[in-house]
């Protein structure tokens, strides 16, 4: 039963972070990213960490779930840490055999790792954990809308994203069905050599592609039958409006971040 899978790691909830306007969240996460890269010294870094912790608590998403989003980059994180630690030359801290760790190396490595972690946590917190993918798509359309004047297909892009999201579960279900059907005919996806496995994959991918194309064709006709003719003159059921909460939250975040940066430069 692949029906239960959810795309992304959206964690359903009604917290303040969930209810913020998705456009505000996209813009704020960009802003936060810049701040993360501007912060250099340990104290402001610590303050920024605390601020992120507050955001984590505000989201009401379980800590374990948030930390879990670091898993995919764990390898990169460790790799970057070790490389920085070992390659940056400076005042010697400890020497173990041929390996020398410098003070500057340790500092850069820690800064790098903390930055990466803050970056991942803040963006997943704003975008993946508290915003559904479809809202992200909508928000991107709205934000890119001004670019339409220079011919950027903002509406088309958003429509493509939302249709893709709509069909992911359908195609997953279909994949499962096809695999079962081919297994019944003797196809084997688990055992056998590399070539046998690749061969098995072909028996799934070809029918899947054929059906996806057929679906695309039928969907296009169904959309036309429902008077779809591109983004021109189209209205929306859900209109995005910034609320006072968005403004207050954005102001607070900007003030906090500015304060942290002031601590660093003063």
């Amino acid at each position, binding site marked *: *039963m692949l*029906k*239960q899978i959810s795309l992304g790691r959206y964690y359903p909830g009604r917290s303040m972070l969930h209810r913020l306007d998705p456009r505000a969240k996209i813009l704020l996460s960009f802003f936060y990213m810049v701040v993360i890269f501007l912060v250099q010294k340990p104290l402001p870094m610590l303050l920024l960490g605390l601020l992120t912790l507050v955001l984590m608590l505000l989201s009401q998403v379980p800590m374990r779930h948030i930390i879990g989003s670091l898993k995919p980059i764990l390898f990169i994180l460790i790799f970057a840490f070790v490389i920085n630690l070992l390659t940056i030359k400076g005042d010697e801290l400890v020497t173990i055999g041929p390996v020398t760790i410098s003070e500057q190396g340790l500092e850069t490595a820690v800064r790098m790792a903390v930055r990466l972690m803050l970056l991942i946590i803040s963006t997943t917190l704003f975008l993946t954990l508290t915003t559904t993918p*479809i809202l992200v798509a909508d928000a991107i359309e709205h934000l890119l809308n001004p670019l339409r004047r220079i011919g950027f297909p903002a509406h088309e892009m958003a429509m493509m994203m*939302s*249709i893709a*999201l*709509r069909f992911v*579960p*359908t195609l997953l*279900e*279909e994949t499962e*069905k*096809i695999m*079962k*059907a*081919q*297994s*019944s*005919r*003797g*196809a*084997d996806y688990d055992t056998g050599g590399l070539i046998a496995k690749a061969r098995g994959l*072909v*028996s799934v991918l*070809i*029918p899947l592609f*054929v*059906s996806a194309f*057929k*679906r695309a064709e*039928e*969907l296009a*006709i*169904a*959309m*036309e*039958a*429902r*008077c*779809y*003719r591109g983004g021109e*003159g*189209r*209205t*929306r*059921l*859900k*209109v995005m409006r910034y609320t006072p909460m968005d403004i207050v939250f954005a102001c607070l975040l900007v003030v906090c971040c500015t304060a942290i940066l002031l601590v660093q430069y003063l």
Partner: protein
Amino acid sequence: MQAFIDISKVHFSYRQSNQDPLLAVQDVSLQIAAGSHVAILGRNGSGKSTLARLINALEQPSQGIVLVSGRNTAQEENVWEIRRLCGMVFQNPDNQIVGTTVEEDVAFGPENLGFPQPDIRLAVDEALAYVGLSDDAQKPPHLLSGGQKQKLAIAGILAMKPSCLILDEATSMLDPVSRHDFMQLVETLVHDQNMTVVNITHHMEEVLLADFVYVMSGGRVVTSGTPAEVFDQVSLVRREGLDVPDHTEIAHAVASLLDDQLQPLEAASWDSSRLAILRLLDAAKRRAAQTNWRPALPPANTPMDLEGVETVVQVKQLSYVYAPGTAMETRALDQVSFDVHKGELLGIIGHSGSGKSTLIQHLNGLLRGHKGQVTVLGMDGSTNADIRKIRQRVGLLFQYPEHQLFEETVFQDIAFGPKRMGLDMAQIEPRVLKAARIVGLQDEELERSPFELSGGQKRRAAIAGVLAMEPEILILDEPAAGLDPAGRDEILDYAAQLRQMGVTIILVSHSMEDIARLADRVLVLRQGRVHAFGRTADVFSQEEQLVRAGLSLPRTTAFLKSLCDDLPALDWHCFKPEDAAARIVAAGMGLSIGAERTV
């Protein structure tokens, strides 16, 4: 009064690459009045779907004129208003949903039309309430059932404030209960909202709901009239590969057994058919009293004797739970026990969600039970070592098997299974040719790409792919789903043929008629439990028990039962119209049915 839809002398042909254009609609003229319910009936490829697209301005006629509410579909500026006026529900529920939530999908049409936001909200809420999906407004559409998805499609159209609904085989992928539900919704729309309905279908039961019927064949309208007038032409309707109502068919069969004639429209309705049969019997009795004429009755079939026959499948106390320990936990099978004898045809029947598909996947090791035992051909269905061997001897044909085709040629696709069994080419080729012969594929078709074949041919190729493995047990999951009556009869014929060849067959279906016609024994599933299990005649004679499982008597049986008051000697435990006629004549004339033959 001007007709709402006015089609006059329309021709349409599809352009085909490097072939002559395909003439899909030829010289069709018809008028549909506002507020009427019209059915367009025809087999696959008769041009009926093309006609729907012509009405909706998705295609423009190559000759002739299509007017919708006085607007010419060929004029660019009319297209959007025509599409708003005539909403269209398509065949595949999944491929017409655009939105990621139910509510957003309904809003799609009004959004395209540029309705102001408050109006969209209102239209969406009203439409969802009308089709009964208000509680599901925030759900992602893939969690809806097939029937709900089609209702969602209707809601999406209603939100555009249309005056006509075109159903393009909208129910052909639904089970009988959802189909009934769906058609009831359509009927309500006709009556409450004066909606014009054009239903393009091959389902005889749906056509009976219409005010007027056009039958299409080869792109032309071959006959038209009220449903009663159309179905009275039994031989024409049959020739077009379509079904006629059981009561009409039985009355006609009785007339021919008695060498007599029916009056025009005499067998049109259920009641009039009953009276017609009684009239024919009276006349025949008088004739028999005066002359030495006696009707010749065909021999009756006796069911296969299963006493002492080897058991090939043994299922004991099988339970299966989907996603155990999560919020989505569902008990799909609950202590299911049954057996299958060698050479029999076992029918498995039940609603969508009753556990049929889950059950059959246990029979070739695609799923393993959490509790209980599955023994297939003496092997244990839960050990890895045996599963490969089981899959070679048990063929499982899924619903819409044409979706599994993938090889470059039909021949290679059919050969896939045998090849995986480790056979060499010398053994494979005769198997492929034999399987292709059973399903009626020509040699030249074997060299073509499976994707070039027509829908019906693809289904045949997929069936051949399983047959070429020469399974001892063949499991068919809704093998006739989505086919027109002629296609359905053909596939069910293969099942009967294979059974004659000694293959044990397990047929899963939600059609009472198909199961009743073919099965030796029937297993009725309800909410994952065995609701009834036994000989077909025994199971289908317990009407109350069937009704409790949400099923009804096969139509033929129900009609026979209604004749019992007048013909006390009538044995109504019968499921085939042709057998039913013989029984009626035997009971009415005091004859016994001819020498019994065993199958």
